[in-house]
């Protein structure tokens, strides 16, 4: 049942592999916001960077937090990694982002159709909803499913010089996250603010 998403010409990929491919492309201290659970576990495991922000709660807010960073620092590229279940909690944020149209924001939706971390129950829209179609209908014209790993890398690179916000949907398997984020919110925030050049280290 877990991958019974609507038939698409897209390969089922792996979240840690895709996250590692994204991180490998970062050369300019780009910000990366990891959603709760496996999304930020894999971001941590792909290699900790001060420019990574790891959420420990507030499900669904990876894109809004990334939007805030993108508005504060329009010269910095900001990536956000979100699960399909999390995004379903905050679909309205897609319209907000489409309206503000920050050109430095790239959103990746890791879609496996399940609430993996709570026991792999299916999300309510798993069998019928198309996240990329929802994003397009929310006003994010620059939205696409990645067909395979190479296509994902191409879409990431394309987003880095896009004229508006980009959303990339990826179908992923149900493998658990690889690492475990250190759960110290103040340390995470302070390190991230160093990474954003907002703070000097003590």
């Amino acid at each position, binding site marked *: 049942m877990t991958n019974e998403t609507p038939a698409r010409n897209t390969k089922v990929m792996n979240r840690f592999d895709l996250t590692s491919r994204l991180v490998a492309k970062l050369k300019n201290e780009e*910000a990366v*916001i990891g959603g709760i659970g496996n999304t930020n576990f894999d971001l941590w495991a792909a290699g900790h960077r001060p420019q990574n*922000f790891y*959420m*420990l*709660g*507030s*499900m*669904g*807010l990876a*894109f*809004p*937090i*990334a*939007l*805030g*960073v*993108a*508005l*504060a*620092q329009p010269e*910095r590229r900001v990536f956000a990694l979100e699960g399909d279940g999390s995004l379903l909690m*905050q*679909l*309205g*944020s897609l*319209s*907000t982002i489409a*309206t*503000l149209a920050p050109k430095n924001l790239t959103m990746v939706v890791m879609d496996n159709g399940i609430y993996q971390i709570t026991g792999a129950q299916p999300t309510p829209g798993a069998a019928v909803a198309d996240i990329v179609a929802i994003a397009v209908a929310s006003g994010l014209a620059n939205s696409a499913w990645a067909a395979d790993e190479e296509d994902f890398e191409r879409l990431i690179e394309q987003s880095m010089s896009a004229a508006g916000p980009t959303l990339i949907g990826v179908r992923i398997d149900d493998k658990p996250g690889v690492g475990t984020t250190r759960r110290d*919110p*103040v340390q*995470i*925030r302070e390190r*991230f*603010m160093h990474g*954003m*050049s*907002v703070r000097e280290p003590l």
Partner: protein
Amino acid sequence: MAAAEEKTSPEISEMSWHGIVLQTLKRNDIRLVPYVPDRVLTTLIRNLHADPFFTTFPTAREEEAVGIVSGAWMGGMRGAVLMQTSGFATLANVLASLAIPYQIPLIMFVSERGTLGEFNYGQSLVCRTMRPVLDSLAMEHHTATRLDEFEFIVDRSIKQAITTQAPVALILSPLLTGGKVFDK
């Protein structure tokens, strides 16, 4: 910031409550103001939109606005969120899992519905959940009722939030704003 030492100026104390909010935000370099609207906030929202100093826009939910100003703070830009009481009621999770544990100076202006002549029973019930939530999270909050104290409360609360890296809720009582009246 010399502003911390300034006394309330006669010009400010003669201003409307929404004029004081706008000027005090500006003085404290708070530029990002996402909101979910409320009838009482209409003039403030209109004036924020009209002033190029501010980046102000509606969001679909209050927690979305909290996420946005939290990200902006970490990126070096100060923000505040506008909402009404029923919107505050949707925020317990994001306050307890983002603003408080990550020590983010989230500044919230909450237009108080549900009291002093409320006509909608649902609004009056949801209003009673607000202060217990704030108290149970040990969050700083002030209810503004008087124009002559308002600039002091807003300015000092913003400065305290930023210097102590803690969220604050400024509740705008109908005694200050006139509230919403039953007209239809």
